[in-house]
């Protein structure tokens, strides 16, 4: 169960629309390393997470990713507010506009719609946590790339915040991997699946 609050995790107040930036940033909404995939990944993986504390961490980080999804949606909405048709064409937003007008749709920057194939829930805590660490790094790289492509400080500040969160989440997942390692015993220290013991001889 979740409780919704009418606030963003970090304030967003973009004064000038910029369709070109919106077209890039939408990737963090529904792209391969975006916030939708991140939240679904962690919130799905927690059911087979053998370590209770790590399952809690997945819940907390997955919840924060939902707040990040809301932030990206807000950035895209504010960047596309009151655009003229001329701007839409000139700034290359026409290919998005024709399908979604200025609605927020989960897709990658190049137009690929969100698919669960972007992520995994493997049912093996060690496999999943290593994917999660990779996912945080990939999202961090995407934010690095966004920061190379946009120049509006109103956009840069919340993107920098989101980038920093990827770094912190990577750190926490690394610590969680250490906690899982501590759970392994001498018969199972080659990082075998600790949540599905039946298959282990």
């Amino acid at each position, binding site marked *: 169960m979740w*409780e919704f609050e*009418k606030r*963003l*995790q970090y304030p967003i107040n973009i004064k000038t629309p910029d369709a070109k930036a919106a077209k890039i940033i939408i990737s963090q909404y529904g792209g391969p390393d975006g916030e939708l995939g991140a939240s679904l990944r962690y919130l799905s993986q927690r059911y087979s997470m053998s370590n209770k504390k790590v399952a809690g961490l997945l819940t*907390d*980080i997955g919840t*924060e990713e939902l707040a990040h999804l*809301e932030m990206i949606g807000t950035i895209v909405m504010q960047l596309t507010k009151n655009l003229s048709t001329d701007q839409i064409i000139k700034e290359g937003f026409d290919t998005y506009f024709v399908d979604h007008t200025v609605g927020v749709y989960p897709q990658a920057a190049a137009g690929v719609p969100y698919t669960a194939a972007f992520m995994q829930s493997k049912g093996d805590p060690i496999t999943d946590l290593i994917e999660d660490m990779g996912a945080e790094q990939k999202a961090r790289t995407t934010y690095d790339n966004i920061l190379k492509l946009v120049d509006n400080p109103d956009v840069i500040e919340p993107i920098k915040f989101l980038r920093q969160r990827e770094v*912190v989440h990577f750190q926490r997942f690394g*610590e969680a991997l250490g906690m899982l390692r501590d759970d392994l015993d001498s018969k199972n220290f080659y990082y075998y699946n600790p949540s599905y013991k039946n298959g282990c001889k």
Partner: protein
Amino acid sequence: MNRNYDYYCNNRDSGNNLLLDIQRISFAIDELRLFLDTHPCCKEARVLFNEYVEKRKELVERYNKEVTPLGGYVQQENDDEWQWNDCAFGWR
């Protein structure tokens, strides 16, 4: 536009600093929660967590009363009108 909409939204503007304070302290709590998930034995963080939660409670209570209900489990100002959706959401 009904009276309540004007009332809440006007107050919301003057409540922006209050909202910012809530965002600040909530973030500190979010960060401490993740830290404590993997460092449950850190007493210093546990004390700070409780301190911030206490402080946040006061700020949210003020916001609920003076501006608009922040969450969905908040008692409404009066039972003559439904106010939850009257005022801006986070993304507006």
